[in-house]
């Protein structure tokens, strides 16, 4: 009787620990070889055959196709520079410089990777359509209500994810320092 109880107890804990860890790692985007610059994180190896088992599981589960290594690299951000999570009811500004790339695109998604409905049908910017200062810098305002300049609407959703894709770029597996890849900074400007 004690043996039966003991093994039941063991298997229950084993299942809870094992499945819990799997769920946590897959929903929180844990994968090896992350390249983090400021608030932005990319997994360069996810676009190649060297992709690790965690990234493989995440991709299989979500149904997305990762950006191939010979194509470009995708940087994800879910918080601002100091760790405030992206809330679509708040205002965030993104400003600064981007690493050298032939083209880049910035896109706003909900946490499941869907585009967000908004009044002007804008889901992001490309490097060609952004309005810049005379010195090449730019500021993008991510906010629920219309703003002058480069306004990226959030649609007022509770949580969002930003994806910065650099196409035809040298940034990748070999990139180590933020000097090689200066990513724009993200600052929260207030909520409501």
């Amino acid at each position, binding site marked *: 009787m004690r043996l039966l109880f003991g093994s039941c107890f063991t298997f229950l804990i084993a299942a809870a620990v094992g*499945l819990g860890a*799997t769920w946590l790692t897959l929903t929180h985007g844990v994968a090896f070889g992350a390249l983090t610059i400021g608030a932005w994180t990319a997994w360069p190896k996810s676009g190649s055959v060297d992709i690790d088992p965690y990234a493989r599981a995440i991709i299989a589960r979500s*149904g997305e196709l990762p950006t191939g290594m010979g194509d470009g690299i995708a940087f994800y951000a879910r918080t601002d520079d100091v760790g405030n999570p992206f809330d679509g009811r708040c205002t965030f500004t993104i400003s600064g410089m981007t690493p050298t790339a032939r*083209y880049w*695109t910035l896109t706003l998604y909900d946490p499941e990777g869907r585009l967000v409905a908004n009044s002007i049908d804008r889901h992001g910017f*490309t490097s060609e359509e952004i309005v810049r200062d005379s010195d090449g810098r730019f500021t993008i305002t991510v906010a629920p209500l219309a703003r002058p300049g480069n306004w990226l609407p959030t649609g007022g959703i509770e949580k969002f994810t930003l994806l910065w*894709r650099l196409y035809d770029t040298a940034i990748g597996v070999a990139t180590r320092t933020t000097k090689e890849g200066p990513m724009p900074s993200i600052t929260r400007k207030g909520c409501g």
Partner: protein
Amino acid sequence: MIRVLLLVLTAILLGGIVHLSTVLAMPQAAKQDAYSRLTPLTPVNTMVPLATPTAEAEVMPFMDPAFATAVCRYDLSGGALKLIAPVSQAYTSVTFYTRKSIAYYAINDRAAGRRTIELDLMTAEQHAEVPEEEDVTAADRLIIESPTTVGLIVVRALAPEPDLMPMARQALASATCAIQPVQ
């Protein structure tokens, strides 16, 4: 006390095994991976343009809305595949994925260095059967080996501004993929 501690330790060890095996099994178990999503939309060995993602509908999550996309769902069991993709004005890339969404090869228009991207896709066995002279004489013939018999080729053309989307879609409209007749 020691008995309970031992049980907990065993449980954690077993939990680790459960965790690793579920992570490794996920790609096999996933019902909604990219290939499964594309299967009802794409006839085999045919280049099919995908609808640009909108807030209401999209084929896959995290698609880049600035790009026109076309997909060739391939099956090499009938022979090698020839891919021809014209280069659009801004930026065009071709990415090859296995059945389980692993990007095993990607090339962009500049790396291809021509007006059109032309590639031969074959399995390792089919590559071994290509006559050696042919391989040498056609030095500029780009041969890609697919690690799996089935998979996906995704051609993407950038529309740098929304107005240029029809042009990007136009460029992709003449992209083709077809099984080559056996010589």
